């Protein structure tokens, strides 16, 4: 490229933007007729401007909208009240100002110091520093995440409006969760802390903060597993005037016909009246207590029958939950023939099994995730009891390991050449290839399945499959990835 004349670049830019005065513009145009360097530069500038405008018309890449939405709610529920991260530049500015201030203060002290030194030589020693009590940790509002929903479970918000509980919608304080007959739900709000609500039960999440949590059982039974709370923390469940206070344990609270029953499987709980009338009772592991609704005297504790029953509460590893919630909480189900009474009886977050219940017979079940078909199969239901089926996890499709993605991207040109070779023969050729690629820990491709081929010409798929089989990924965890390649002629 020949450079434009010295000092003309700014004028060329102004000419292109239309901000050059008419006379100067005419002069420059005349100059360009005889100056190839300026002419070429101007052409390039206008081409670039055109390119910028074309960028404005470019189509957006498709995004997983529902997943993003779920993650937004998750973050809102878990970080509400936290101050936004301070930009680094502001911190730097603050640090700079502080340093300047400190230096100025030092100079002032150095200059004026001797004149201030009027204190007697044997003055009372001054306490330079005193032990500072640790600052109280701010309470943070939590949200409970449904980890298992079985049957009809309703979420009732503070205004009283109810909707079906969903795996991708966290439950905040002030809400109530109600299960119908035969339904169950599990919620989790911290690592190791959660509840399992039995059928025909209702619980109100009154307070759900990082240190203090309080539930009220309205009816039915709830089983709780609680991780040890921080110092000063408190967890309480209230039910018909009976408060059960704990520090970290596994226990069950149930409202029976005329009593509140508390059973303790691990740790120690304290059972106390909410409005007085009787003294507190401590219930150790393996014991239970039955408190009548109108109790006037302290109830006596009794050993649980069967010793320590297994108290299962569906808890999952906390750091994985956000991802799992976003990936499994969006499942929808369609069955054929349509109109058949078939429902997702139980959905476990992050799990690969689904429980189905419905009319006996043979159903073609289609599972959609994010509006896309995830799985399709025939399911035979024999009776009213639910049937569990395994589904393929989709996590690998959502979050592809960076090393794999980068590698495929770098070598995508090889796949493209398969397409282009056939495009020369058929200019209308277009389609999609989806491969399931199994990669071992050494990075070797052990298996390649062509899941989708919409070309109508199997040669493109075969060529791509041969190419992929030759790939050697960087070593790492063994994974199975599903990767789509879409080709369209212009």
């Amino acid at each position, binding site marked *: 490229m020949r450079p434009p004349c010295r000092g003309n670049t700014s004028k060329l830019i102004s000419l292109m933007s239309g901000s050059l005065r008419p006379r100067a513009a005419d002069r420059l145009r005349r100059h360009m007729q005889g100056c190839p360097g300026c002419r070429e530069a101007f052409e390039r*500038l206008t081409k*670039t401007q055109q390119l910028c405008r074309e960028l404005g018309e470019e189509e957006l890449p498709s995004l997983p*909208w529902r997943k993003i939405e779920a993650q937004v709610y998750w973050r809102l529920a878990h970080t509400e009240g936290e101050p936004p991260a301070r930009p*680094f*530049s502001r911190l730097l500015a603050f640090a700079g100002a502080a340093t300047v201030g400190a230096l100025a203060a030092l100079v002032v002290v150095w200059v004026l110091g001797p004149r201030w030194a009027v204190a007697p030589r044997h003055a009372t020693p001054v306490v330079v520093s005193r032990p500072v009590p640790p600052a109280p940790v701010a309470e943070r509002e939590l949200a409970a995440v449904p980890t298992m929903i079985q049957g009809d479970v309703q979420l009732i918000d503070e205004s009283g409006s109810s909707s079906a509980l969903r795996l991708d919608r966290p439950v905040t304080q002030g809400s109530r969760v109600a299960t119908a007959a035969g339904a169950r739900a599990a919620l989790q709000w911290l690592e190791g802390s959660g509840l399992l609500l039995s059928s025909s039960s209702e619980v109100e999440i009154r307070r759900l903060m990082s240190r203090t949590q309080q539930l009220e059982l309205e009816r039915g039974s709830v089983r709780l597993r609680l991780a040890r709370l921080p110092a000063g923390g408190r967890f309480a469940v209230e039910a018909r005037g009976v408060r059960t206070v704990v520090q970290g344990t596994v226990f069950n609270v149930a409202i029976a016909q005329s009593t509140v029953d508390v059973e303790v499987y691990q740790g120690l709980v304290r059972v106390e009246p909410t409005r007085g009338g009787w003294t507190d009772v401590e219930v150790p592991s393996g014991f239970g207590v039955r408190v009548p609704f109108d109790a006037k005297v302290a109830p006596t504790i009794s050993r649980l029958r069967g010793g320590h029953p297994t108290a299962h509460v569906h808890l999952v590893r906390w750091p994985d939950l956000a991802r799992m919630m976003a990936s499994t909480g969006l499942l929808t189900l369609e069955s054929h023939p349509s109109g058949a009474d078939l429902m997702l009886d139980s959905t476990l977050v992050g799990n690969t099994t689904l429980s189905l219940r419905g009319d006996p017979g043979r159903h073609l079940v289609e599972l959609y995730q994010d509006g896309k078909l995830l799985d399709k199969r025939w399911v035979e239901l024999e009776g009213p009891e639910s049937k569990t089926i395994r589904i393929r996890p989709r996590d690998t499709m959502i979050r592809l390991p960076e090393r794999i993605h980068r590698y*495929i991207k770098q070598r*995508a040109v090889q796949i493209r050449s398969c397409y*282009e070779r056939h495009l020369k023969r058929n200019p209308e050729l277009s389609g999609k290839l989806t491969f399931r690629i199994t990669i071992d820990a050494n990075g070797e491709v052990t298996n390649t399945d062509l899941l989708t081929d919409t070309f109508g010409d199997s040669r493109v798929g075969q060529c791509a499959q041969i190419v992929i089989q030759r790939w050697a990924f960087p070593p790492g965890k063994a994974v199975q990835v599903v990767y789509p390649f879409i080709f*369209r002629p212009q």
Partner: protein
Amino acid sequence: MRQTARNTGELVLGCQKGERTAQSEFYRKYRDEVARIAYKVLGPDSDLEDIVQDVFVEVFRSIDRFQGNAKITTWLYRVCVNVALQKVRKRKRRPEGHTVEKDDFPTFETPLRALERKDSARIVYRILDDIAPKKRAVFILHEIVGMSSKEIGKVVGANVLTVRTRLHYARKEFYHKVLQAELYGERSTTGTGAGAGQ
């Protein structure tokens, strides 16, 4: 069960009360617009999914501060541009080719011409990365998104004269760099494969 669509005022009010249904409706209504602006400001080498998420988290957290003095879309663009510029600043502090590697757009799935255009887009955004964020925002909103100076002023919270001044300097800087970097020379090297296929 489908709810009837609410008007924007009701929707904003619902979001200010923290109603999940209102937030959901608001998200569905404006997500494309947010993604479009974020994509234009940050370019093809950005993690658009994360940006959209950040914008809506910021929107729902700060919607209480929306007084109704401006159009909701203007306010939304402002949040979007601010979040995007924060990303730009962050990226500038970590310039070790991170953004180039994190490419979420499989170049092979588009036709050759689009592929070539995407490479050009990359070069455009690489040049924009060297321009100060405020000037960059004004340049993109004007030259790529196609907004007027008045609209840009509302979005970036500056008067029209300031916007025009920024735009003037941004243009000058950008096109100077374009000529310096011999843009089309770079394009022809990156687009060799594409050209051969055509």
